[in-house]
């Protein structure tokens, strides 16, 4: 029984990070209906940038964060500006394919700059650990969960109530309509990619604390996809729930069937959900008037 408790806690921990990254994925999908397959590699690059500030430049936690998050935002904007903007007006399949190729380029960049071996381990939130009942909790995990949850709340509020959030939902409906009302579609795109960049960076840092800074982090990005899909690709709340669910499934399955089984299991769930409830739990039935 005690083993199950530990797994559930670990699952929720990871789940919150998956949820956060999934929000980034949903944000991009909502504003430009692009399935961003490079989300995992943005997470990787974000984590490495943070590692660069923390480990190479020896800055401590707060300054590294203050430098890493804006650079994550810039990374998102740069990606949108260089690869996606020229494709506006092209068929959707080209936009999605470009994100696939982006994952190649990002992986290449990371291995070009930092090599392919895992980076030296660093502590992010400090050593310490405590126990709740019989379960050992390290400060790293608890802080990671806290940061993830905070970021999620901020994003939801932004998305629901600000004018910019409304504009983003408008852009998702139709680029031309919104443009004819004076809303800079390009600006909205770059902002949503910027936020996705920040979400990925935070996710990367948090994942880095537990799994270490290595190329494997990009597989976490893969998990954001089932998380976002199960949540319905439409709403940030859906993404969070999806993330937590995926986290649980991954840790439970890998707990009992050996740790390589975690990721495939989530995709099995993805396919099952796609069969039963294609629009996810929170998705909107798409209005298709011919």
């Amino acid at each position: 029984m005690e083993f199950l408790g530990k797994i559930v806690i670990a699952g929720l921990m990871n789940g919150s990070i998956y949820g956060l990254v999934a929000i980034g994925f949903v944000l991009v999908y909502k504003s430009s209906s692009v399935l961003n397959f490079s989300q995992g590699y943005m997470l990787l690059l974000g984590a490495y940038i943070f590692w660069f500030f923390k480990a190479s430049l020896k800055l401590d936690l707060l300054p590294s964060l203050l430098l890493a998050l804006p650079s994550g935002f810039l990374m998102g904007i740069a990606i949108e500006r260089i690869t996606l903007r020229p494709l506006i007006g092209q068929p959707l399949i080209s936009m999605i394919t470009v994100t696939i190729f982006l994952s190649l380029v990002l992986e290449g960049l990371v291995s070009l700059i930092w090599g392919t071996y895992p980076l030296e381990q660093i502590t992010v939130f400090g050593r310490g650990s405590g126990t709740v009942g019989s379960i050992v909790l390290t400060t790293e995990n608890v802080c990671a969960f806290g940061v993830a949850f905070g970021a999620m709340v901020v994003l939801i509020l932004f998305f629901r109530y600000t004018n910019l959030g409304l504009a983003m939902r408008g852009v998702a409906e139709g680029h031309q309509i919104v443009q004819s009302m004076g809303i800079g579609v390009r600006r909205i795109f770059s902002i949503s990619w910027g936020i996705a960049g920040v979400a990925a960076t935070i996710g990367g840092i948090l994942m880095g604390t537990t799994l270490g800074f290595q190329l494997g982090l990009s597989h976490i990005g893969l998990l954001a996809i089932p998380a976002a899909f199960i949540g319905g690709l439409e709403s940030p709340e859906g993404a969070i729930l999806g993330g937590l669910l995926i986290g649980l499934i991954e840790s439970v399955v890998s707990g009992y069937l050996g740790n390589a089984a975690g990721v495939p299991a989530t995709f099995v769930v993805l396919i099952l959900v796609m069969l039963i409830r294609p629009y996810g739990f929170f998705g909107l039935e798409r209005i298709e008037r011919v």
Partner: protein
Amino acid sequence: MAHTTYYPPSGIYADSFKKDIRIVKTRTQLILAVSAMLLLVAVPLIPGLNSPYLLRLLIGIGITIIICLGLNILTGYCGQLNIGQSAFVMVGAFTSGLLNHSFGWSFWACVIPAGMVAAAVGVVFGIPSVRLKGLYLALTTLGAQIILTWVALFHIPLTSAGFTVEPVKIGSFYFDTPERFYYIALVFTAVMAFAAKNLMRTRWGRAFIAVRDNDRAAEAMGIDIFRYKLIAFAICTFYAGVAGSLLVHYMMWAQLESFTLNDSIWYVVMIIVGGLGSIEGTIFGVIFITALKELIFVIGPMLEGTLAFLPIGAGSGLLLVIIGGVAIFFLIFEPRGLAHRWNLIKAYYRLWPFGY
């Protein structure tokens, strides 16, 4: 997407529908096609060209063309995205390998079943996503890539470690050397390419294009989108399966390493660079990217040697950046790929001295 209007020389007219849709319309085209074939057949015999390195490269290109042909039928003609193609190559490879290794079936007995099994597995993964509008097939094929690799790694005894496979043989003649296997690869590639080209002249082909261009209109015309997307995906995975079987019987060794997610992405790169929806485009794309890859394999180590400060593994990083970069360049500046560029050159020549 790479269709072009055809400018025949004057004096060429069709007095029957069959004549109108022939693939080879003029005598010069026939001569060109036949001479190209003869050249390909003669390659191993020409001293300069028949170095083992080049033959192995050509065989690799041949098998990759088959994989990309399937992918182009699905993505280019039917508009569905598949980023798990190499998993289905693996399915074909292991099916054929196991049939041969465990049941002693010859290559000729295994290749079609390999394709069939790959197609069956493909359909299983295809059904959930094909029901939906939008590019959800990309998600399920990504899932397929991960799940199938996991299954092969842990749940089939032989595949995780790799196992030996008999080479292709006819009677007592073994196609075990590159010079000999070259002909097997050539025959299969030619047959599969011609089949793909022909497919576009059939009802299925037209239905695929209808689904790609406007699935709502296609549905209104009575085309069962679900069925045709599934057929397209089945053909795509069948092509992958056959290629997998060829690969395994050529390498005489079946192992997991050559079927990764990156390989799937590379196949997508090849059809984008080559030209979506064009058979010639697929061939151009495969040759172009393979040549680029070989080039980088030469430059990579040199670079690592000279620029010492680069970390270990920079060579592979460089490869990814360049190939990814080239793919993105094509997507943005030449969306219709090399095939379109080739058609423009042909049109320029055909329209000479007029401009339009």
